[in-house]
């Protein structure tokens, strides 16, 4: 999901911690802000830290007039190197920037059934990924390189490289086959429930020391932090990439449920809507019910703010999908392309 969705849903769930919302008002405390901050923290760690400190064995910079054979060969050799040296090999492939707002798009297909890497050079696109008229590549557009060892994709076979930074791959030898892991620095230790629990415990400890009492309000701060971070990790599991849920006890990312793409508008918007509704309800409940002048019926609130808008949004979404059969027919190919870029820019 997008960064904002993680942020607001984490805040909303943090407000469910018993007493937290009332504590925020009564003590002018920013406790609920912590929920949001820790809700976005896993991606902050990945996209502001891991991404740059990750160790690469190779970084490939395609020329302005790219040679597809050269790019394909670079990827193929990195896969073979992982097999030969029996260790993880990390490769980063750069985008081809042609101007302030212009990029040459290309794709990398790692076809394990044919044992080859295929690179296709595409049109020039702007930062909105809109192809520019008459920008089809005039040089050689397709390049191939055979891979001399068995390999397997764990995520998707084709990756489109277009704007900002290019993709990273981790090639990991395992039982005679090299597994291809997409952006290996993402959703690793930072996206673990273990780290969430650790952060929650640390914050509890700090607050307990500050106030000089162990239980109150330390546990509340700890619960808010844990819940905020865990919300992010659980939401990510609905996507394709999955997360390393129990690092360091687990070493790899577990597969996501593939129910949605992180950039899909409807799940993002619906989550935001429901989060805001939950947050508002918790704010209302935090008031002293005797003195508070407004009474909201739980049933009416659920009906008018949660059920009806959700039903309308889902119906609208279904209608839109039904009215564009072409989009549905093209969905698998399109989704693979989108997912690559969504993962790259999901944080923003």
């Amino acid at each position: 999901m997008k960064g904002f969705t993680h942020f607001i849903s984490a805040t909303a769930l943090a407000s469910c911690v018993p007493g937290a919302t009332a504590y925020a008002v009564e003590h002018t405390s920013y406790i609920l802000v912590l929920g949001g901050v820790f809700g976005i923290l896993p991606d902050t760690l990945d996209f502001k830290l891991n991404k740059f400190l990750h160790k690469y064995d190779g970084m490939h910079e395609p020329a302005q007039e790219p040679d597809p054979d050269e790019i394909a060969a670079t990827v193929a050799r990195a896969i073979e190197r992982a097999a030969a040296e029996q260790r993880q090999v990390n490769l980063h492939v750069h985008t081809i920037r042609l101007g302030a707002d212009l990029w040459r798009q290309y794709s990398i297909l790692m076809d394990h059934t044919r044992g080859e890497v295929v690179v296709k050079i595409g049109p020039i696109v702007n930062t909105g990924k809109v192809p520019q008229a008459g920008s089809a590549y005039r040089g050689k557009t397709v390049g191939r390189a055979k891979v001399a060892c068995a390999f397997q994709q764990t995520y998707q076979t084709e990756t489109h490289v277009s704007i900002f930074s290019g993709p990273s791959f981790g090639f990991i030898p395992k039982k005679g086959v090299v597994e291809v892991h997409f952006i290996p620095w993402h959703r690793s230790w930072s996206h673990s429930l273990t780290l969430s629990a650790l952060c929650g415990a640390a914050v509890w400890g700090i607050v307990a020391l500050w106030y000089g009492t162990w239980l109150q309000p330390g546990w509340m701060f700890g619960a808010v932090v844990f819940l905020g971070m865990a919300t992010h990790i659980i939401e990510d599991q609905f996507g394709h990439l999955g997360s390393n849920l129990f690092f360091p006890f687990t070493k790899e990312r577990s597969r996501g449920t593939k129910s949605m793409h992180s950039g899909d508008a409807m799940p993002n918007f619906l989550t935001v809507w429901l989060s805001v509704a939950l947050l508002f309800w918790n704010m209302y409940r935090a008031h002293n019910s005797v003195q508070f002048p407004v009474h909201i019926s739980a049933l009416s609130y659920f009906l008018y703010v949660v059920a009806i808008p959700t039903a309308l949004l889902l119906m609208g979404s279904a209608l839109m999908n039904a009215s564009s059969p072409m989009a549905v027919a093209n969905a698998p190919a399109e989704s693979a392309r989108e997912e690559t870029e969504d993962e790259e820019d999901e944080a923003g």
Partner: protein
Amino acid sequence: MVALMLKVVLSSCAGTLVSGVIGWLPALHGYNVAMLFIVFPQQIEKTAIGNDPYVIMPFMMRLIVGWAILNTVPTIFLGAPDESAVLMVFPTQKYLMQGRGYEATMLSALGAMGGIVCLLLCAPLLSKTLSVARAVMGPHYFWILMLILAYMVLSEFPKGGDRGPTRLARFWDAWKSLLAGILTLLLAGWLGFILMRKAPINTTFEFSNIMPAFVGLFGIPWVIQNIMSGTEVPEQHIPKSVDCTGFIAFRGITGGFLGGFFAAYIPIVTGGIGGLLAGHATAQNDERAFIISQGASKLVYYVGAFLLLFVPMASIARGGLANMLRTSYVPRGEKDYLMILAAMAISAALAFFMLGLVVRITIWLIKRVDYRLLSWLTLAIMTTLVFVITGWGGLLIMLVSTGIGMIPIVYYSRRSNCMGVLLIPVALDMAGYGPAIARFMGLQ
């Protein structure tokens, strides 16, 4: 009854014409002109407008609606955004450089019209829901503002760091823009503290206290960039239709409306921040949806904030204009509410048609006049207006703000960090930490 309707319609039309002029002028805010009615009531009374609220209120609404729609033109063609439009500048600037400035303007106007329709559709619900929302959320504003601030800082992601010989070099390259963003936010917040406590301006226009800061933070840096980069604007095309689907328009309008209304309702949150949040909430990657949403957000923010004053049972004063107006005018229930809604609808329709004319004149102008010269002219107009409204003190604030506003341009960080000028001091004041910080800064 007929006479009353005629008054509303005529004053709306008159306001349209005035907004046509002020909307085109960079830095001249619609709220500033509307303030004249409050600050100089005797002088206004002597004019044809008189002192009839059924003439003045629709006229003011007209000014605001017209300005919010027509001000898109200098934002796109002269690169002179106000703070609510600053997010929109990058995509629209791209459109301008592709010769599609007209299209960008129309997309933004489409968003604005969609915003008006949404406001009209929601109007019957506002009186009940807003009074409840105010009661429930009122005590929580302080942390909601801090939540927004936290998101602004955390959601800014690196714009570099891809290439570099070592990991550390890449890390530093990436963090340069992030640190610049945080620095901008803090400096803007610092400036905000000073302006709210010891502003070197002696003015009766409440909104004008912050006006030179906004011009310096958002408007002037962009114009300076245009002048320094020697931008040559390509020939602009006027297409018969705009490249946009119904779904994109719907997504943009919905997101923009929600963001704009959130900004209008929550104190201190502006249309720019509302637009940023709305864009992220609706996962907008499409440039067209983004431009539409910013057009909707800007209009709903400015118009909605003024409209809230007239909502029966709620009557919420948001912003300097509504707060000052409240001292001299009390809305008279549903009758006034319906009047202001009618004025809003009429004004939006007229402004939309006027926009076509204004944008054509602007295209004609930039075709004949050197763009750099126009940028100099924009700079001169901005500076003159700041001086006329706020004097030497205002110019000083504008100068300091420009220095802060240049940081995002030099380091490619997010310009919305400049909104720290309002968000930081107000969020801390609401939580009760403001006086202690002001004492620490020697401001009390």
